[in-house]
């Protein structure tokens, strides 16, 4: 006897991601999934982003790491609500983890939530969290060849942050080649050059975020 199934193997996560997405929309919230290799500077960029943005937007953060709450403590120091997820081994966040963590942020009247994913350019690309868009952070010290080596995550990124731009003169990172490679995979992606350390480029990134929050609100109120 042959039984046709057609069952999506990632179906369970897809269902939970859809639920998250619906809740985030209901709460008028823009949600960004921040991904990168370990050490690219996601948390530092987040700290800078919060400093720059918190007068204009109410911010919440969901932190994802295997172990420790070090990143959550750093974000807490910036005065915004934050929840730490410890996966204790899982190399990515999934929609279930994010849905449960978000329960601790409900009631804060937020405009935007940043999800800082586990440092990993491979697996997070496969797990929809219910976010509005994905942001990939790549630093100048990592080499400009990463887009072609990790096509899935770069294809999915709406925004790409090239971090540690202040260190560019001390590296062999070729910005032109990087942008060409990104364009060959994902010409619609916006590339921002930033430095989490000096603050360069953060304002432009924040302006874009404010625009995205406003755009989502306008579209949802039109419905």
């Amino acid at each position, binding site marked *: 006897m042959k039984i046709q199934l057609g069952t999506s*193997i990632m179906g*369970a996560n897809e269902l939970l991601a859809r639920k998250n997405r619906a809740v985030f929309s209901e709460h008028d919230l823009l949600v960004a999934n921040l991904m990168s290799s370990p050490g690219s500077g996601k948390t530092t960029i987040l700290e800078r982003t919060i400093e720059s943005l918190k007068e204009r937007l109410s911010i919440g953060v969901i932190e994802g790491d295997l172990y420790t709450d070090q990143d959550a403590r750093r974000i807490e120091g910036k005065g915004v609500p934050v929840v730490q997820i410890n996966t204790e081994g899982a190399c990515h966040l999934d929609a279930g983890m994010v849905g449960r963590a978000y329960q601790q942020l409900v009631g804060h009247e937020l405009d935007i939530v940043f999800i800082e994913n586990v440092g990993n350019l491979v697996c997070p690309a496969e797990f929809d969290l219910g976010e509005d868009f994905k942001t990939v952070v790549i630093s100048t010290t990592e080499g400009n060849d990463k887009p*072609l080596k990790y096509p899935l995550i770069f294809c999915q990124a709406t925004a790409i942050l090239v971090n540690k731009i202040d260190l560019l003169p001390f590296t062999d990172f070729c910005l032109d080649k990087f942008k060409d*490679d990104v364009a060959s*995979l994902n010409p619609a992606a916006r590339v921002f050059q930033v430095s989490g350390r000096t603050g360069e480029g953060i304002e432009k990134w924040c302006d874009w975020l404010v625009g995205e929050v406003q755009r989502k609100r306008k579209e949802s109120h039109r419905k």
Partner: protein
Amino acid sequence: MHELALMTTVLDAVRESARQMNIARVNRLKLVVGKLTMALPDSLQFAFEVLSQDDLFRGAVLEIEEKDMQCECAHCQHLFKVENGYRFVCPRCGENGAVIVAGRELYIDYYEGE
């Protein structure tokens, strides 16, 4: 990627279906896996061997159909296969900007049993 976790999900889904269909023995199971997913067929086979030790699955054969990565050019709508290099540049018009239309599949096609 997480082939053991994926295979656990697969076997749970088939187990539930087999229970509903009164199937006591699965002989064959077919998965469709796109080349852009992070699931490697060899690792899936290994995970299957490790996890298929119960009466329902013992001796069952796992078949995996791999789907190539295919893109559709956003400019001229040409459908093309993406090979090594992973550059999504249209071979017909040379433009960037292609939509992935195949290669991200990850599903259980069917199983056979009695």
